[in-house]
């Protein structure tokens, strides 16, 4: 213990003797690490598996059913129609399945009808949504089936915001002037990246406030606020005919998710889609080439072309910058050790073993790591702040948890050791005579 304290003291003295070169080395190292960490943070949140316990079983299904005889159109549309959804559901192969889209509405409570309604984010979906993505309920439960009903499930924050408490099952609220009953309140829940809906590169957005049955939304003519694609739709815009029009035309806005437990089920469902498309073609529908897609939840950002390319490009550059900084810091630290070489040699002449000198160097690494870690975190915060200000849709991706901090600390220590390794070896293993002669 005493030896360690002695070594740490020596490190401190050596820093104090030439503070400028040391400060410069530290600055360069932590600048590189900070930039790298800020980028790695964003990259981690964008590309992590948000639901590791079942991500292997979740798939988004699409078919290439749009009208128009187009032989080059091999890629299905990003969003599906109501008719597609009906054809893809009810296979008996999936353990859970739900179609969905995002929308918004203005909400208020019955007690507070005079208040200005507040905007809320809606997820229009079906019963199995909550089972698919392991959404935890605090009170109440999901709808018993997929039929239309004026009932909603709301998030915990929404309950607090509108009612001031969380047990609000059975309460009524107004959504766009329509009366709904709250049948469930969710526990705190988030999914980052929000992989169940990445269309429009919205994967960094928070989960929704209110969940409404799909059939009800069609009846009330609620549309998607992300993508509505009408193909060959002849509609005069009359709201009374919307529910029928939207269910029987290529008014595409749905994403359809299924849970398939195991490779056998995946294969069966693929075959089911194949047979279904063959039947459709035989019936004179589905004019485009077969283009069934079953994308795993972890590949869905790529499949929907929703990856953040700017972030990827910056990742490449930030890694290069780290390389430059590490190279530079080791160069500077080599200079520093060379300047101290005489002192090392003198210690060895007085009887210190090479391994005792290594102990001294490890103490140096420890001090540098600690200082570099703190400085790198500061630079990383600054970097994240800059990136958030400059690149859209990155604000939600800037937080650290303990695990990440631990990984960063280990990484800093490794890099510090690497930076010190060659200089240390060079100084402690150089010929003693030559050094002392100088």
């Amino acid at each position, binding site marked *: 213990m005493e030896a360690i304290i002695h070594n740490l003291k020596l490190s401190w003295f050596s820093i104090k003797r030439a503070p400028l*070169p040391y400060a*410069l080395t530290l*600055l*360069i190292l932590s*600048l*590189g690490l900070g*930039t790298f960490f800020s980028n790695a943070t964003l990259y981690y949140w964008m590309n992590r598996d948000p639901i590791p316990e079942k991500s292997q079983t979740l798939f988004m299904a699409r078919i290439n059913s749009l009208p128009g005889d187009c032989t080059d159109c091999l890629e299905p549309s990003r969003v599906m129609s109501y008719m597609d959804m009906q054809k893809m559901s009810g296979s008996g192969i999936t353990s859970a399945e739900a179609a969905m889209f995002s929308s918004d509405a*203005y909400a208020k409570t019955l007690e507070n009808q005079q208040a*200005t*309604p507040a*905007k809320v984010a809606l997820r229009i979906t079906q019963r199995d949504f909550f089972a698919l993505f392991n959404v935890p309920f605090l009170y109440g439960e999901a709808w018993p089936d997929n039929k239309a009903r004026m009932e909603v499930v709301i998030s915990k924050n929404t309950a607090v915001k509108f009612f001031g408490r969380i047990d609000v099952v059975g309460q009524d609220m107004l959504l*766009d*002037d*329509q009366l709904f009953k709250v049948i469930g309140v969710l526990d705190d829940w988030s999914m980052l990246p929000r992989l169940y809906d990445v269309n429009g590169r919205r994967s960094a957005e928070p989960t929704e406030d209110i969940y409404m049955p799909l059939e009800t939304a069609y009846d009330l*003519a*609620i*549309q998607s*606020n992300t993508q509505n694609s009408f193909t060959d739709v002849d509609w*005069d*815009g*009359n*709201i009374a005919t919307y529910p029928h029009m939207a269910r029987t035309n290529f008014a595409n806005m749905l994403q359809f998710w299924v849970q398939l437990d195991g490779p056998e089920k995946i294969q069966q469902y693929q075959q089911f889609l194949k047979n279904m498309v063959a039947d459709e073609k035989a019936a004179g529908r589905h004019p485009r080439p077969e283009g069934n897609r079953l994308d795993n939840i972890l590949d869905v950002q790529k499949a929907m072309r929703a990856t953040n*390319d*700017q972030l*990827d*490009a*910056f990742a*490449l*550059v*930030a890694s*290069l*910058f780290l*390389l*430059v*900084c590490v*190279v*530079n810091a*080791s*160069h*500077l630290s*080599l*200079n520093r050790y*060379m*300047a101290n070489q005489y002192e090392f040699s003198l210690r060895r002449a007085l009887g210190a073993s090479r391994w005792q000198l290594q102990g001294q160097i490890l103490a140096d690494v420890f001090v540098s790591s600690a200082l570099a870690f703190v400085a790198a975190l500061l630079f990383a915060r600054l970097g994240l702040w*800059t*990136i958030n200000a*400059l*690149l*859209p849709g990155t604000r939600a991706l800037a937080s650290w948890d303990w695990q990440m901090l631990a990984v960063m600390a280990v990484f800093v220590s490794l890099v510090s050791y690497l930076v010190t390794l*060659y200089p240390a070896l060079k100084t402690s293993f150089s010929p003693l005579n030559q050094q002392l002669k100088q």
Partner: protein
Amino acid sequence: MSVHLIFKSLLRRKVVTALLLLQLAVTLGLVVNSLLLAGAARQLVEQPTGLELEQLLTLWVKPTSAAMRLEPALSEVINRQLAAVRQMPGVDSVAYANQIPLRQGGSNWNIFEQDRQDETNIESVPYYNSSESIFQVLGIELITGRLLTELDRGTTNIVMTEKLSRQLFAEQNPIGKVTNNGVVVGVVSDFFSQRYASDAFYGQILMAPLHRAEQGYHLIVRVAQGQSDTVRKQLTEVIRNAEPQMDIGTVLRMDENRDEVFRSEIGLATLLAVLSGLMLLVAMISAYSHAHFHALQMQKEVGIKRALGASKARVLLDVLSESWLTTAIGAGFGILVCYGLNISLAKVISIPAVPVWLPLLTMVLLLLCVTLATWYPARIATRISPATATKTL
């Protein structure tokens, strides 16, 4: 000092030199590619839009009551809002529309000439459902035919941009041609419509009945020159007073919409510029400390040289030329790195190819930075008096 001697001295310190060269090479590669991206982003932002950006204010609104989003209440609300805005001092004209120009994406329809769908179909052409004042507000000019008036509301008459008309009908007279979306009655000058439409300058304008505003609608205000700030300050209040049950977005000037459209590109270019600046700084620190350290190490050598009659200027030049040589060699490797990095970046984002002059220019910049950083340590080296330096010999 001869180049040969400098080489020898560099080879004596292989690891240090290799580290230095690697760092210089990567720095050059990064700076070149950042400059390229910055240039490309600038070109995107500064391209002509066909609109007077500083004179246009835009605002998204949506009635918070569902009933007010349907006709006839909707038209009544819009008219009330338009009338209120028109009376504001500094306002030239105002229009509503389902969407505004200069956006990433929005509401599009395909368009083709009737009976010639196979040859003329164009996917994804933005459409503007608006009022007759839209032409005056956007400041777009009539090229041929006529503009739409309130009498066209509810008919299928459409007006399109010149570029779209040329694509659809080539050199033929477009007036009176029938498309799947209506009859062409006029052609107007091009304006930047949607970035990711089939073409950014395609647009079709019509005056269909409104029916409903489920996604809200936009108000576009043309203000007198220099009045945008004054009008902008009051606009939200005026809209709120005209109808309180309204969700009101942020008032944006058209050039702010443009910056929003290209935000990813501008953002990345700025980030890389910051990083390039940091890299140059790192290169300068490294050159500084390298020269400083060697000035101390070479004290005796410098002293002997001075004693043998080398002038201060000569010693200065010796130290500097070593820096120059390493920088030049490093930058030489850097040209390889810069093409390599360009190819890797092109796989994830769109980036122009490297023109020959750019690496050379960057090399000069790098040399300049390194010279600046080496200057002070080199000066110190020259100050060593021959007597002091040779005392220990």
